């Protein structure tokens, strides 16, 4: 008797397996066609490290205090300080981040008190030669030019450590390719913060 019951339960489960796969046959695919449609990076995505600069004056915020260089666990950042003769303000003469070593952990962003360094959502920097992966000051500044940032208050560990970075109200975006991803696009900024122009390619 056990044999027969086992046989029928076997056939039932085989059929159950077929039904389950059939359930997904008509459904819309969850994958997106990458080169045409780009993933919408989150506001806090930790991609490439960039140097932020003051939009008006175009100068770097960084005043070479070497805090990020010390905080970096893999010593990917190398900075050479220099004092500006005129304004007596220190600035980094050489600021290099070796992107091959950087582990994108975000500790430098936390250590910096002058909103000079930030990890953005950009990730498309594949290059054939390795030398170009050591980003110097100008490249870091140029990538970071259109990155928006909020001036962080001076960090006091006593109070709530890091003020909550308010996420912009999520406005529905033309891109309808990702049904379930929470899409944050800065309302004011036509180019989303990650700098990629979101080409709504023909998906189907």
């Amino acid at each position, binding site marked *: 008797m056990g044999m027969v019951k086992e046989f029928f339960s076997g056939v039932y489960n085989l059929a159950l397996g077929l039904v389950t*796969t059939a359930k*997904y046959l008509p459904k819309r*695919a969850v*994958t997106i066609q990458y080169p045409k449609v780009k993933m919408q990076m989150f506001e806090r995505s930790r991609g490439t490290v960039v140097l932020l600069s003051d939009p008006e004056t175009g100068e770097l915020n960084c005043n070479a205090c070497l805090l990020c260089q010390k905080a970096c666990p893999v010593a990917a950042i190398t900075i050479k300080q220099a004092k500006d003769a005129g304004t007596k303000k220190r600035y980094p003469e050489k600021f290099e981040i070796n992107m091959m070593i950087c582990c994108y952990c975000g500790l430098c962003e936390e250590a910096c008190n002058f909103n000079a360094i930030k990890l953005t959502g950009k990730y498309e920097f594949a290059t054939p030669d390795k030398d170009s992966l050591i980003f110097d000051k100008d490249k870091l500044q140029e990538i970071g030019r259109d990155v928006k940032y909020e001036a962080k208050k001076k960090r006091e560990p006593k109070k709530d450590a890091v003020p909550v970075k308010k996420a912009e109200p999520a406005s529905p975006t033309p891109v309808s390719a990702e049904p379930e991803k929470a899409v944050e696009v800065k309302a004011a900024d036509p180019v989303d913060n990650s700098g990629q122009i979101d080409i709504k390619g023909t998906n189907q």
Partner: protein
Amino acid sequence: MTLELKGLLDWVYTIVSGIVASLGLPEIIRDVALMLLVIAALIGFLMIMALFLIWWERKVSAHIQDRLGPMMTGWHGWIQTVADALKLLQKEDIVVGTADRKVHFWAPVVVFTACLAAFAVIPFGKGLIPTDINIGILYIFAITSFTVISLLMAGWGSNNKFALLGGMRTAAQIISYEVPLTLSVMGVILMAGTLSMVGFVESQGPYFWKWYIWPQLAGFAIYITAATAELNRTPFDLPEAEQELVAGFNIEYSGMKFAMFFLAEFLNMFMVAAVATTLFLGGWQPPLPGLAFVPSYIWFLGKSLFLVFVIMWFKWTYPRLRVDHLMGFAWKVLLPLAFLNIFLTALGVYIF
């Protein structure tokens, strides 16, 4: 005006015989010319069908797994397989130095001819049967067992330990599943009383409840299971499973030879589905006489493509069997069931 191809065939027949008569050549030349035309049409159709099946398998597996499959080459990637074929064509054809050169070369040829030869007796539609010999089904089973020889040749020819192991294992699997496959069809032969393929189709009557699948449901199930094992497809795809650690018998093949094995596998799948449609699902007969306005070959293609879809569906749902289970399943489960089915059918036929 039915879209049957019968009219077209007669028209071609008259033209060819007209040309031959005008040139004053003997009758035999006309038959040979017609034969060549039929072969050309058949091979052309099968090549397109093979390319379509490969593309279709990738799309079916993609949509089952919630993804899109090839999209880049043409609308929904329809010329993807053509692109793959061209790529394989220009690949360098490496032959291992110590390989048994002749055996290595002829293995894919054998598997391809065996596969194409089997289509000689498949009734694609009313009157659309290349040669209607009266031992149709026997011919098919004889030809399909050729593939076993080609696998052994491939395994032995590449002079590689794993290829030989894979070849042996595939041959053992196919032989042990050939037996239940043939026996599962005996039931249908008993009911139809003939061996010719067209005979099967006619004896299944115009109404769909007259098809042989209903009385022969067990036979149909055994047939489909044994056929999946014949094709080395999951859940019976032991040869290229990771247990074999390597890709079984077609390790040493590259370029067009590998493509021939690949095409042969998909043509075999279509052939298995075609035979199942002819035997169990009433060939090119519409389910209801009222639907006869749709041409017969459309019905035939529809049914066999549905069965091909079912075989693909198995592949993307089930895990793989272990070797001893595989063999045990064939001899201890499928074979007794097949005998039981024959016995019951014989009883049934005797009573009615």
